[in-house]
């Protein structure tokens, strides 16, 4: 029987929840089977925000990176995430246990006999690792080689994502902040704001730093060259598709990681929708005020920023709080996109650094404000410190080493003719006439 819950706020279980009923298992599994629509939305947005001469490579790259990521995660990453096992490598400092990395069975041995909840958690992690690997792909559009993208997805899925997943979801040191230091319920990340979006956004930053901007993006004089996305329809339809996936994603995450009762799921879905809607309205207003007309691609970024923010706090916030969190994300996202490009010369075609990185971090802070437990905000801040202070330098180091083995950047000729012709031998739109690009004169 479904009990009534007055708000969307989820009562967070202090200890592992009781065994999952078959009905809850079936519902969560069904939600997880809808979650790939969020991934499809991200793929369409990444593709639409790139140039037409790289469109096929962009969409194929989304598929390939996701495929590599899930295979590497199945082979090794899931073991380090520790979802199926109970053992972990840990430090013992000041009488506390600091779980660092899981030591579960390789190749997901024992999956069939694992508890239903563990199986769902693993499925959730597969979705999460695919999305985390795809987020930086849009930032490297028009210059990041497919083979280098696949190699980076392997590094992300085999090393970085499992570390973060174990710390946050697998009972690692961030999850134990509540038990060890009395900080709320430990670091909370029901939908992957940290493990997927902040990680993906920070990875995008490391990638953009290493690969550099597209040729001609920042000329010697004047403002940066505008290189608008080639298909606003892909981008905006991707936003709608992502909404469906996100509604399912956040609801499934609330059940799996926060042990939310079924009665809390409609509220979680409503908060997800409200956050995205508030973010879109805020971005619409900001771009209308700044440019005199609303900007389609920035509005798409705003919508997505609202969804990303909701991954952290939809299950913990009231509807008013969800609107506030989304509006803040939507207000700052277009400004941050502008600052990144114009002030600090970061060429991020998909806006992943602002949309996934910054909004993911903001969502985690907002979750700390909205959660009822004392000390929750501090737990969230410690988690953010780990993402910025450990994960970002680690990703940068790994990518810098990888760049020496598999060059990230395509050669100038490849960039000139487009990634489709250079890497795939054919374009996404073969009936298009390829014209000379003025920026190469």
């Amino acid at each position, binding site marked *: 029987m479904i009990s009534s819950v007055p708000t969307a706020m989820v009562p967070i279980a202090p200890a592992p929840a009781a065994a999952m009923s078959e009905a809850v298992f079936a519902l969560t599994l069904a939600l997880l089977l809808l979650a790939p629509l969020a991934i499809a939305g991200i793929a369409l947005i990444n593709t639409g925000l790139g140039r037409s001469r790289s469109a096929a490579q962009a969409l194929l790259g989304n598929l390939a990176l996701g495929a590599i990521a899930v295979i590497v995660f199945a082979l090794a990453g899931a073991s380090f995430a520790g979802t199926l096992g109970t053992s972990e490598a840990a430090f013992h400092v000041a009488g506390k246990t600091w779980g660092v990395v899981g030591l579960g069975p390789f190749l997901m041995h024992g999956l069939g006999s694992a508890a239903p909840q563990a199986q769902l958690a693993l499925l959730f992690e597969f979705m999460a690792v695919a999305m985390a690997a795809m987020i930086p792909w849009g930032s490297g559009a028009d210059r990041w080689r497919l083979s280098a993208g696949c190699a980076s997805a392997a590094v992300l899925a085999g090393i970085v994502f499992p570390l973060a997943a174990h710390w946050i979801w697998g009972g690692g040191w961030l999850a134990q902040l509540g038990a060890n230091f009395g900080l709320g319920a430990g670091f909370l990340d029901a939908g992957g704001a940290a493990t997927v979006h902040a990680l993906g956004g920070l990875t995008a930053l490391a990638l953009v*730093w290493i690969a550099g*901007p597209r*040729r001609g993006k*920042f000329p010697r004089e004047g403002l940066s060259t505008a290189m608008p996305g080639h298909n606003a329809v892909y981008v905006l339809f991707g936003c709608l598709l992502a909404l469906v996936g996100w509604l399912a994603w956040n609801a499934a995450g609330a059940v799996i990681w926060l042990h939310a009762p079924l009665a809390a799921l409609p509220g979680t879905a409503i908060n997800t929708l409200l956050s995205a809607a508030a973010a879109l309205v805020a971005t619409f207003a900001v771009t209308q005020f700044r440019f005199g007309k609303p900007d389609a691609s920035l509005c798409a970024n705003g919508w997505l920023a609202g969804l990303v923010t909701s991954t952290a706090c939809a299950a913990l916030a009231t509807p008013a709080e969800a609107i506030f969190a989304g509006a803040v994300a939507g207000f700052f996202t277009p400004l941050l996109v502008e600052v990144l490009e114009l002030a600090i010369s970061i*060429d991020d075609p998909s806006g992943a650094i602002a949309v996934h990185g910054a909004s993911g971090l903001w969502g985690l802070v907002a979750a700390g404000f909205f959660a009822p437990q004392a000390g929750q905000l501090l737990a969230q801040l410690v988690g953010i410190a*780990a993402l910025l*202070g450990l994960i*970002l330098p680690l990703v940068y180091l790994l990518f810098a080493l990888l760049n020496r083995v598999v060059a990230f950047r395509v050669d100038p000729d490849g960039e000139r003719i487009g990634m489709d012709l250079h890497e795939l031998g054919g374009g996404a739109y073969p009936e298009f006439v390829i014209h000379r690009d003025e920026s190469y004169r």
Partner: protein
Amino acid sequence: MKYAGLLVMPAGFLLTLAALLLFPDPARRIAFVICGLAVEAMGLVVAVRGHMPARGASRP
């Protein structure tokens, strides 16, 4: 300079860990965690400035 920034960021993280271990008092703890985040932010700013391409560097 870009590597210096990336090295400062883990230092900020260690400050937040030290805050957890050394200060049971919530007020001091949150103050030191915020200091750790501020150090990370400074490292990020240095790394960003170190990675800024020279104007015209992206022109062929």
